[in-house]
């Protein structure tokens, strides 16, 4: 599946959003990624957030706080984002396994300092935020109404190589 790193953004204003909240264990009995699609963030309890709401359905990018994706190693967590066409997550920090799972699947888990994340949250007060990632330039452009901000980010060379290769299986297959 071709990955797209741009689109409408949903803001999840909490730290430590865990994999059980992203995809509850009872759905781990599925053996295809597609089957997970209806259950994205089903158990996330957050003021103003509705797992069945339009905001999540429209979202192509997620912005959140610290330690995103903590808990289980289940790759079902990145997959449930993937099959819902969310291929970009931007947060202050990640749990290691979740972050690696994102890049291993050729998706982006971008880490930004708190001040940048705060700026993005502030932008959301101007309306729906659209974010576009420029991979080569390593910049994020975020727009809401007439407001527009640009933020640079860093990813390791390895993670970038995975995104360009389409994932770790592709990368490893070439090389080992």
């Amino acid at each position, binding site marked *: 599946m071709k990955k797209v790193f741009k689109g409408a953004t949903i803001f999840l204003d909490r730290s*430590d959003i865990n994999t059980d909240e992203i995809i509850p264990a009872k759905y781990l009995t599925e053996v295809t990624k597609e089957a997970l699609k209806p259950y994205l963030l089903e158990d996330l309890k957050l003021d103003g957030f509705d797992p069945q709401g339009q905001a999540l359905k429209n979202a192509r990018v997620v912005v959140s706080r610290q330690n995103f994706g903590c*808990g289980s*190693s289940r*790759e079902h967590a990145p997959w449930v984002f993937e099959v819902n066409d969310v291929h970009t997550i931007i947060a202050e920090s990640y749990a*290691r396994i979740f972050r690696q799972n994102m890049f291993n699947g050729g998706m982006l888990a971008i880490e930004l300092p708190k001040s940048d994340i705060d700026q993005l949250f502030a932008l959301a007060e101007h309306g729906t935020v659209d974010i576009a990632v420029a991979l080569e330039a390593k910049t994020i452009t975020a727009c809401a109404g007439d407001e527009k901000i640009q933020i640079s980010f860093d990813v*390791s060379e390895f993670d970038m190589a995975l995104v360009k290769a389409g994932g770790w299986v592709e990368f*490893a297959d070439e090389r*080992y």
Partner: protein
Amino acid sequence: MGKTISEKIFESHLRDEPFEGTKVLALDRVLCHEITTPVAIADLAWRGKDRVFDKTKIKAVVDHVTPSKDSKTALQAKMLRDWARRHDLKDFFDVGHNGVCHALFPEKGYIQPGFTVIMGDSHTCTHGAFGAFAAGVGTTDLEVGILKGVCAFREPATIRVNLIGDLAAGVYAKDVVLYVISQLGVNGATDRVIEFAGSVVDDMSMEARMTLCNMAIEAGGTSGICMPDRVTVDYLWPFIQDQYATKEDAVADYLKWHSDADANYDQVLEFDVSSLDPQVTFGYKPDCVKPVAQMAGTPVDQVYIGTCTNGRIEDLRVAAAILKGRRVANTVRGIVSPATPKIFSDAMAEGIIQIFMEAGFCVTNPTCGACLGMSNGVLANDEVCASTSNRNFNGRMGKGGMVHLMSPATAAASAITGVITDARSL
């Protein structure tokens, strides 16, 4: 500058460094269970690469939902089973022989000092108790591990946790690790290995060390790790006696893995645990921890003793000593799942199963069971469980359920009274 045990393991297993700071390691063990492996198996088949890098280094078990509860879990088990047969994996454990992965594989002697281990399961860090670098990974890492026998990691940084003093009677490894997590926070060890050391660890059994390392991930750690010593050798002796003339030789050989005195640590923490009380979690994060006295009196609907954290024979012995001659409160459902068939049969031989049953516990087969709310022992909305497991996330054991993590002693005492109870007060 000296090296940490993790750095030594990385150095000895380095296959490639495609970019600075990215280490691709050769793997000694790729461990598989039926929840995270089937998608990797299907993907490999879809790519026309249905192969395994080394059938002796891959071990597999059906443990999360077993025996299967419905057609979906039956399919997961079948996919793993068919794959194991297709590739002639000698070490595949199915109904009748299966148990919780992080208890079963160490018991079989599969994890040895200096090994690199991955599994599609976050609590793979447990195996670091043997002086191995053991990390939980996702299905894609697992898939590449199965196919190529390699996995990529960032350069390991280490937090050393020195545990000193004397643990009071009635205080266990579980209490220690809950306390350590409360101090580190749920992301305090992200991208780092937690090296557990100090006289308290030296005196611990392998079972207790596994309990410590099991919860490293709850502080975000890549792996927990302990230095391999005489205790490790005694545990592994049946499996390593062909490699060494004497136990002393093995102990001496394992010294090569020990962190050097002048190794570089990201952080060194020291905790004197002499005055530590039993610990219990509140809330929905494993770093929300209080001494049992502050949680005492909280009513519980279910008590669960088992899991990869505390379902080993030592844990069952501790719980049984408290339950002996007593009965579970009539407001409580007690469930015990010995973590492996060997633990189950040892517990039978020692009369422990009888004690649990006379106390009114339901004894299940070895499985993850209630721990992640996927099969038996699921909580109803608003119900509370006192559990010896490792994760208290919202909904972990069933939607709307609350989980309090604690030691087997505290769980057993709470089963008797129906409220969270300090076992030392009984």
